């Protein structure tokens, strides 16, 4: 009986897949779009505003997609670091002895988790970063200038001299410039994922028995030492698996970059599809790339998980 059920389900799935694939081949043939990859070598013909690897419009499509992937990886890496720092800070703040700080941490988490990420991204881009003034009116903080034309940071210049942002003829110059598109995307991703990571960290710290805090306290550890030496190493066993899924969701969420004008892999793929009409190939490349990114993050986090788990002798 179970095998009969299985055979029936298998047959249905098989027929369905054959039906869909048959249609796909027939429709693609009719449209003259049978699968080929040779178009990847044609010149792309569009520019990408900011790239992590050199790119111009005369380069082929595969190079454009690679540049998009590099941009995605850039924002994902920066986002992972930022969200982890913010999430850990907020997650541990919910155990502070200060009642106001504790409540603010809760408010932050409850506020951010219940507002769609896409809405937050367009908010950061259109309302915050695009409203920054340019030139001398730009927001100036020590070593950092926030302007509509970009964020200017202090860094070492060509001669290894520490160099701050300078106003030259009404235009800011600095060794390091971040576009507002990247900044808006990064801010949105970090603040959104940070709220989820804060919950993961809070759950992990809460899973450490109260007696551990008390024991460390009575042994003369300071609160900060207790946290870093006693509680966090134990909490990490609970935190790391939760972090894994948050990291993957951050990588996937980075595909919303198109909402704030940042050219990531998805955005390049969309342009490529509009120009070439190669829907199936483009979707395969997209899904494959995100799958590989997910698998890499998952593999690294599983390795980390192996390190922090309790080793039983």
């Amino acid at each position, binding site marked *: 009986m179970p095998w009969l059920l*299985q055979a029936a389900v298998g047959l249905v799935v098989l027929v369905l897949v054959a039906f869909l694939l048959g249609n796909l081949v027939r429709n693609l043939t009719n449209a003259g779009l049978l699968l080929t990859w040779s178009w990847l070598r044609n010149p792309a013909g569009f520019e990408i505003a900011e790239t992590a690897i050199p790119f111009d419009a005369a380069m082929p499509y595969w190079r454009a997609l690679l540049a998009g992937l590099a941009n995605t990886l850039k924002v994902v890496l920066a986002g992972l670091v930022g969200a982890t720092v913010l999430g850990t800070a907020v997650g541990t703040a919910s155990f502070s002895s200060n009642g106001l700080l504790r409540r603010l941490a809760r408010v932050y988490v409850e506020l951010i988790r219940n507002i769609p990420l896409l*809405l937050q991204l367009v908010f950061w881009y259109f309302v915050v970063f695009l409203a920054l003034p340019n030139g001398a009116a730009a927001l100036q903080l020590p070593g950092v200038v926030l302007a509509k034309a970009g964020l200017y940071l202090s860094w070492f210049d060509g001669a290894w001299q520490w160099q701050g942002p300078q106003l030259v003829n009404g235009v800011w110059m600095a060794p390091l410039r971040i576009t507002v598109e990247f900044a808006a995307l990064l801010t949105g991703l970090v603040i959104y994922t940070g709220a989820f990571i804060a919950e993961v960290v809070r759950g992990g710290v809460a899973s450490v028995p109260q007696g551990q805090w008390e024991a460390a306290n009575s042994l003369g550890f300071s609160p900060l030492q207790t946290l870093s030496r006693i509680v966090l190493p134990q909490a990490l066993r609970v935190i790391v698996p939760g972090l894994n899924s948050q990291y993957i969701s951050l990588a996937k969420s980075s595909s919303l970059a198109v909402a704030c004008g940042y050219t990531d892999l998805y955005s390049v793929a969309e342009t490529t599809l509009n120009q070439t009409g190669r829907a199936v190939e483009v979707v395969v490349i997209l899904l494959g790339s995100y799958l590989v990114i997910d698998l890499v993050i998952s593999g690294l986090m599983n390795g980390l998980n192996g390190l922090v788990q309790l080793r039983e002798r």
Partner: protein
Amino acid sequence: MGPVSPVMVRPGAWLRLRRELFASRLDGLISIALIAALVTVGLGLAKWVLFQAQWTVISANSTLFAVGRYPLEQQWRLWLLTTLLALATGLSCGLLRAFPRSGAPARSWPRNDRWAAAILVVLALWRPMALQLALPIQLRWWAITGLLLLARWAAGRWGAAIPASARRWIPLLWPLLYLVGMVLISGGLGLVRVAPSEWGGLLLTLLMASFAILLCFPLGLLLALGRRSSLPLLRWGSVLYIEFVRGAPLITLLFLGQNILGFLLPGGLAPDRVWRAAWVLTFFAAAYVAEAVRSGLAAIPPGQLEAARSLGLPMPQALIHVVLPQALRVALPATVGQFISLLQDTTLLSLIGLLDLLGTARTVMANPAFLGRNAEVYLVLAVLFWCCCAALGLGSRALETRLNPHSLSPSQP
């Protein structure tokens, strides 16, 4: 967290404040800095909301935000649907109070119900000031609010008089209402058809979210059972599907739905853009719901299934009557969490050119008359989404305590 001392002395407000905010010098400094920051932000926000923001962008486009380009002469159908929904909500709330399940005494107006009624009344009265709606529309909202409260009161008052045999059919009101609502919105059965491309704003957002939520749950349940099945074909098929969907960003799947679904189906069979997106949302959410349900299934000891089987129950009955009721109760918070993120994910429809709430907002702000009014529109949308999501979360917690009334009070066996 800590051990509770047997004698709890309630300290005075001043003492509590001091202990909470100024326990040590560092705490005091942090508190002062935070209070200063909060006051600055709060004052700035209040000044902007009251004096600088121009709310005409909301009031002038309120119909667009609510229903998109739904034909004006057909909008009475939406008002009728809203009225029916309000009546059903009032009736359900009242009946839930008339028959508390946990054995607690039936109280017709507990404190949170009084709060909810007060908030409703305040909202209904305050909205004309905030949105500057036309008087006829405002009158309709007052009437609908009044009907809701009336239904709530009547059901609480006379609900106990309904015979038990009739009572079992009352929950069926909701699926019935959903079908009626779909007919009212899309037309047919003698009503003028309104094409999905004319739905928009909050209507489209809620419709997409409710459609996907209703359908993704049974799908996810089947996938979760398949993943835990001992039949390798079912198991591997489910695993493949779940992991494939969970590995891909939603936007790429929506992209796939818009661009490839037409190739996969015989010519002319592919649904239009709105329904394509709805099905993609459903199949996407099903994979996540499957994982939530699977965690619930994993929490049930295998002995439960074995005992049910050895009592002679066939597999489907053992699952339906023994395993699933317990597993779904455990999986409830995670499942509702997925529903909440599904509601938030409907905003992605704006990226593929549909006019959901965010898509409508983008078209409104492309209008030169409302250029640069981003902050006002996004703030209103954020408040709206926050309220919907927070309400879902609250409802889930209420349902949780109703389903396992003893889990929070271990003193009761």
